[in-house]
Each structure stands twice: as structure tokens, then as C-alpha cells.
């Protein structure tokens, strides 16, 4: 079965009451990038994943995980 990188980005972001634009501004990317990561269209680099984890105050391995299928 093919593996893919899944994430809890949307859940965590809404939990903290942040919009995509606010999160994007926090990590220095555009809203489009946050949106594509949330929708699993784009796999972020390690640097960006770590920045997201820091901004959302969550361990990176909890924010991102591998799911199959």
C-alpha cells in the first residue's frame, strides 16, 4: 500500500483559533502553502515542518505522521 504524509494541521490550527493566513504569517509563507499542506497536496520540507510544529506548539511527529492508503 502506498504511504503518504498525513497531518493534524487543520485540527491543531483551529484548536488554537488561527486562520490559514495567520499561521502562514507566523512561519513566513503564503496562505497557499499552508492550504496545500493541510490538503496533502504538498509535502513540506523538514525546515517548514519544524517551523509549523513550533508555531503550533506541538511535536513535529505528532503534527505529521505516515498513513497508508
Amino acid at each position, binding site marked *: 500500500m502506498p504511504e503518504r504524509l498525513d497531518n493534524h494541521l487543520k485540527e491543531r490550527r483551529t484548536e488554537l483559533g488561527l486562520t490559514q*493566513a495567520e499561521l502562514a504569517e507566523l512561519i513566513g*509563507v*503564503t496562505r*497557499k*502553502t499552508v492550504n*496545500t499542506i493541510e490538503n496533502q*497536496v*504538498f509535502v513540506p*520540507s523538514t525546515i517548514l515542518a519544524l517551523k509549523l510544529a513550533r508555531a503550533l506548539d506541538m511535536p513535529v511527529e505528532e503534527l505529521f505522521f505516515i498513513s497508508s492508503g
Partner: protein
Amino acid sequence: MKSFTIGLVLGLVAVLAIAVAMKWRQRNLPMSVAEKAEYLGKRRARMLPALAIIYITQQASYITLQQDAAHRAVNDAKISAWLALSIILLLALSAKWFWFERKEVRDLLDDENTRANRSDGMRFGFIFAMLTCIVIYFITMFEPVNGRDVVHIVMSDGLGAALIRWGWLERVAHRDA
């Protein structure tokens, strides 16, 4: 030769005029860096397929000119305008866009997702250009093809394919954003 240079200069002046007009239109829009990057990013996503269509439709004009036996200065100007557009599109593909914007806006416009989409577009364009070379190679077995025509076809196909792919990826990325 002179008409080629005139066409090239005219093409570059036209692009510069468009850039200045775009900048003028935005003068009364107070926006933060993030808002401006969002606004320009969306506009770029809309512009890319349009640019690709304009670029590719120029090929029809080139083919018509080839069949025109009379070698006129206006033909040279049109061909050099194609060259000017090719150079600009190549620059747009390989460097950041919106050269007249502030550095922060340009950096944000060239974020990780954009770079990934652009790279994918360039990869697609390269594959398409190589496939075009293969097709032309087979054609030359049966019919001689002018070197200049080959450059024209390969460049147009490669750049056109890269722009369409990049534009499509950008539009997908902006969807629901």
C-alpha cells in the same frame, strides 16, 4: 538584422510598459506584505495559462511567416518579438517574478510551495522539449528541417509546457485557499 533588433527592443519595451502599468494600478491599494503576496500570487496563477496561450498562438504567426516567400522586415520584427517574449518567460521561470516589487513581497511570493510548483513545471517543460527533439529527429529522417525552425519549435514547446504545468499547479494550490 536591423528589423530584428527593433522587434526585440519593442518587445522588451512592451513588457516594461505592462509592468509599470500594473504597478500604477496597485498604487492605491494599502496592503500588508502577506496580503500583497496573496493578491499577486493569485494574479500570477491566472496570468500563467494566459501567457502560455499567447506564447503558443505566436507559433501560428511564425508558421504563416515561413510560408510567406517575401522576406519582409515586419516578419523579422515579429520573430524577434517572439524571441523577446521567450527570454522574458525564461527569466520568469528561472527567477522570482514581480521584479518591481519589494524584496519581502518577492521572497514571500517565491515560498516553498511556489518553488516546488515551478520546479515541477520546469521538469515537465524539459521532458516535453526532449520529446519534441525525438519527434523532430524522426522527421529529419524523411525531410530536412531548418536549424532555426528546430530551435523555435523546441523552445516554444518546452517553455509553453512548463508555463502551463506551473500555472495549473498554482491554480490547484490556490483553490480553496
